[in-house]
């Protein structure tokens, strides 16, 4: 065996153990959204009653999609573009589209981790003072008045961002088994341990019960609203990281006899378990905040950046030994995001490797390095927070969700590959896939994703997102999301060597669609 997890004659890296794959898959699924998005979404959409649409969404779309992506990855044993290309040559554009989406997300996701790293330090001494919001946008980020104009770089963001990228690239350079797997085997148990301590502390705070009451009191009338069901499917969908090729990539390092459906159930339920835990921790804390300020919970409920970098600092300042709470919270946030970032960048690196035949370390340096440079150039600037806001919203709605919709429709309806993939998964899986799997993916998932898209587009044209100017949104929102699709299509048009035109070396190079490995993997 070579030191990168491959054997002589074996062209693809492999996970060292089933646990290694599971931890990596869970590490990818559990990200910032579990901590700062789920609690607020549940609270705003029926509280305890949200559980019903949430579970239905998990069972009818989340898990079936997860199983589908695992199956595609394991069957073709290639990164998304090459795997989809084996299904049908033109379908590779979806893969490159997903790679472009991963590129965009990686560039801004990393900067949030850099902020988290700084806030671990700020927790000691509560350096945000009396006004955490003014501190965040003013003292710390030095956010420019005009979105889109870069007036300079912020050293306090630049250096931690650089450090994050160096660590990510080192882990990727070490490979699937020695890098990604080992990192997740260490980080995920650490994350759970830190977060459990945080939740226990939160539950002992005055007002914790009020916060939990706000989160879990059921509003059954919410179930009659379509928007609540869209929110449930949206949360499951974004939380599981199913739309941008990560799980296809990770599953491509599985052995041919590995379980698929059972692993997907474990990863899916682990992701939701962490979300429930995060909901309890976040709302117990918000209950304490409401109690301290003498206001109802709905006045302090927040999500996203506002929750992490404004509400939590406020809470930390008002509790005894707040530094410890801050340390646990921001450390958890950074770890949760970090393991997801690693998986996102791996999609890009693996896709370029499969396409060009580059070895891992040069691919990590060139591709990962380029991603890091763009990330630092844009997001360490004083306009970084504005870029982030627009890019995140549009790439999620019109990148991830739309790519997933196109992928499901192509696989289920145009190529009609679901029965084939179902048989492939059933050969080795703990849980047999029946007709329900075909119905969920062929009918329910496309309908729900399509409905989400229409609903989201309608809101987009009613008013400008977050009140940004149309010019700014066209460039950094629509432009980024549309750009990812265009880049995906353009890359897919470059002829492959097996088409008669060469980009890379001799026969059998990874990605030519005709390697020994792919033939063996095809069932």
């Amino acid at each position, binding site marked *: 065996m070579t030191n990168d997890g491959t054997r002589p004659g074996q062209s693809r890296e492999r996970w060292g153990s089933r646990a290694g794959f599971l931890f990596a898959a869970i590490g990818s699924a559990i990200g910032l959204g579990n901590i700062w998005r789920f609690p607020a979404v549940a609270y705003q959409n029926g509280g305890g009653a949200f559980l019903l649409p949430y579970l239905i969404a998990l069972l009818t779309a989340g898990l079936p999609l997860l199983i589908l992506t695992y199956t595609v990855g394991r069957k073709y044993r290639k990164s998304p573009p090459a795997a989809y290309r084996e299904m049908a040559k033109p379908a590779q554009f979806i893969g490159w589209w997903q790679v472009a989406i991963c590129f965009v997300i990686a560039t801004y996701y990393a900067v949030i981790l850099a902020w988290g790293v700084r806030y671990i330090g700020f927790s000691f001494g509560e350096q945000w003072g009396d006004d955490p919001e003014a501190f965040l946008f003013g003292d710390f980020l030095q956010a420019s008045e005009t979105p889109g104009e870069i007036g300079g770089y912020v050293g306090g963001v630049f250096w931690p961002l650089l450090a994050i990228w160096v660590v990510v690239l080192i882990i990727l350079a070490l490979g699937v088994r020695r890098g990604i797997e080992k990192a997740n085997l260490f980080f995920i148990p650490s994350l759970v341990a830190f977060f459990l301590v945080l939740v226990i502390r939160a539950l002992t705070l005055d007002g914790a019960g009020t916060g939990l*009451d706000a989160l879990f009191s059921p509003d059954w009338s919410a179930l009659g609203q379509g928007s609540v069901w869209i929110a449930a499917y949206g949360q499951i969908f974004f939380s599981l990281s199913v739309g941008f090729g990560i799980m296809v990539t990770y599953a491509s390092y599985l052995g041919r006899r590995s379980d698929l459906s059972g692993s997907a159930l474990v990863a899916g339920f682990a992701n939701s378990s962490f979300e429930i835990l995060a909901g*309890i921790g976040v709302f117990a804390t918000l209950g304490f905040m409401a109690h301290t300020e003498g206001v109802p919970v709905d006045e302090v409920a927040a999500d996203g950046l506002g929750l992490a970098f404004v509400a939590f600092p406020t809470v930390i300042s008002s509790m005894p030994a707040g530094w410890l709470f801050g340390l646990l919270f921001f450390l958890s946030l950074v770890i949760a995001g970090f393991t997801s970032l690693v998986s996102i960048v791996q999609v890009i690196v693996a896709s370029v490797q499969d396409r060009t035949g580059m070895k891992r370390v040069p691919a990590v340096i060139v591709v990962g390095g380029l991603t890091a440079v763009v990330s630092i150039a844009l997001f360490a600037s004083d306009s970084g927070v504005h870029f982030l806001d627009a890019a995140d919203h549009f790439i999620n709605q019109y990148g991830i969700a739309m790519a997933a919709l196109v992928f499901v429709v192509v696989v289920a309806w145009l190529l009609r590959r679901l029965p084939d993939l179902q048989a492939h998964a059933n050969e080795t899986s703990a849980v047999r896939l029946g007709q329900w799997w075909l119905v969920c993916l062929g009918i329910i998932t496309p309908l729900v994703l399509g409905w989400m898209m229409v609903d989201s587009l309608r809101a987009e044209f009613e008013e400008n997102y977050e009140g940004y100017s149309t010019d700014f949104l066209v460039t950094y929102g629509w432009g980024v999301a549309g750009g990812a699709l265009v880049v995906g299509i353009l890359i897919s048009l470059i002829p492959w060597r097996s088409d008669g035109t060469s980009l890379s070396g001799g026969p059998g190079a990874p990605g030519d669609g005709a390697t020994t490995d792919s033939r063996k993997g095809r069932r």
Partner: protein
Amino acid sequence: MSTSAVIMMAIAILIVWGGLVAALLKLRGHPDEPDDEEPTGTVA
């Protein structure tokens, strides 16, 4: 906390964490078969 909130929290925990435990047990009962490329230690 109100009774309905406590009940919903308990149900959420039972279903989701219970689902995780059930999935783990199911997976444990179905170890991967070795294949010709299997590195040592792959079977859980």
